[in-house]
């Protein structure tokens, strides 16, 4: 990469020289050329520095944390305990049980929706489909969408999955005990409440949460906004390259 850039720079300067000899013949030409050369070096330097920064990039770990004393190799040390997603048990569109074990050793993106939701859900699903399309052949990544409607039975979810052409190999649409779903929403910092005045009867936020292999929240994104989902896609790549 560096060699290529250097080559490009030299070529460019060479071209510039020819240009100057042919056209300028003026006093300022040499100074101009030098200035341009300097500028090119600065740009090149920035590019090199930029690529270094990219490698060192890590996502933040979200949520409350606490310091605890743990015993390691016979010594008592202070360790940081992060907010982690607790155990859960739901059922997906193919009547298969989905628990925290389904996501063992995987990165996953999660959200809360319902199939008949007339407000923000279609936009959320349009954006989540972007995540699905990008990673559908990558078995390090899964998607978990919780339905918050009591009417979304397994057949309803199966029908929905069929219509938007998604497979439970990569994307689980789950239902279960309503209080359990609400409890899990809190764990992902998503608001879910029943409200008769809301269109569809439920109120919920449209966030996507990104969860790492250690079940820690590494990012929260507004699932209705394409720019935020652009960031999510970038962050998934960063998380995939992160050392544990």
């Amino acid at each position, binding site marked *: 990469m560096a060699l290529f850039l250097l080559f490009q720079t030299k070529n460019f300067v060479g071209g510039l020289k020819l240009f100057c000899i042919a056209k300028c013949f003026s006093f300022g030409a040499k100074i101009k050329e030098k200035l341009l050369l300097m500028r090119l070096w600065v740009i090149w330097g920035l590019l090199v520095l930029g690529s270094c920064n990219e490698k060192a990039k890590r996502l933040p770990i979200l949520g409350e944390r606490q310091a605890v004393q743990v015993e390691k190799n016979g010594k008592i040390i202070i360790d940081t305990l992060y907010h982690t997603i607790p155990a859960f048990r739901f059922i997906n569109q193919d009547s298969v049980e989905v628990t925290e074990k389904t996501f063992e050793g995987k990165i996953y993106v999660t959200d809360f929706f319902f199939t008949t939701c*007339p407000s923000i859900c279609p936009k959320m*699903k349009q954006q989540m*489909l972007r995540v699905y399309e990008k990673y559908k052949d990558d078995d390090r990544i899964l998607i978990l969408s919780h339905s918050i409607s009591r009417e979304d039975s397994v057949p309803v979810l199966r029908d*929905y999955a069929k*219509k*938007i*052409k998604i497979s439970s190999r990569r994307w689980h649409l789950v239902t279960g005990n309503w209080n359990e779903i609400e409890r899990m929403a809190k764990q992902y910092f998503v608001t879910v409440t029943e409200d008769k005045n809301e269109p569809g009867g439920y109120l919920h936020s449209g966030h996507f949460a990104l969860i790492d292999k250690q079940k820690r929240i590494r990012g929260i994104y507004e699932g209705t906004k394409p720019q935020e989902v652009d960031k999510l896609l970038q962050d998934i790549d960063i998380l995939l390259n992160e050392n544990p």
Partner: protein
Amino acid sequence: MKIPKPILAAFPVLFFVGLLLGNLFFFRTQEQGQKLYALHCSSCHMEKGEGLAGLIPPLKNADWLAQNPEKIACIIRYGQKGKVLVNGIIYNHPMPANLKLSDTEIHNLTNFILSNFENQVPKRTFEQIVKDLQSCH
């Protein structure tokens, strides 16, 4: 008859106020459709009318709209259930009703859809919309 001076002075002002109101009315009907679309339709049919893969039919370049312009008003007001064939794909997902929209609002909204999203369907007159709405179901 002598017109009192204050009234004479008020004429140009009235003229401009009238112009302003006329303008407001014109742009309101133009833009009302767009605003209503953003408020009532775009969260499902999306900003550019593309719909949602296999679930929500597109309004963009939709053959169904050209074939059934007289049914649009009823669907906006009372929603839609059952299968619809749009651009060769069957959609079967219920659409909610919008009972609070007036006839005028439905008129502006219908014409906004018919003349946007790459649709080139002739606009419907207000009388046609009223008739369409009377013959729902």
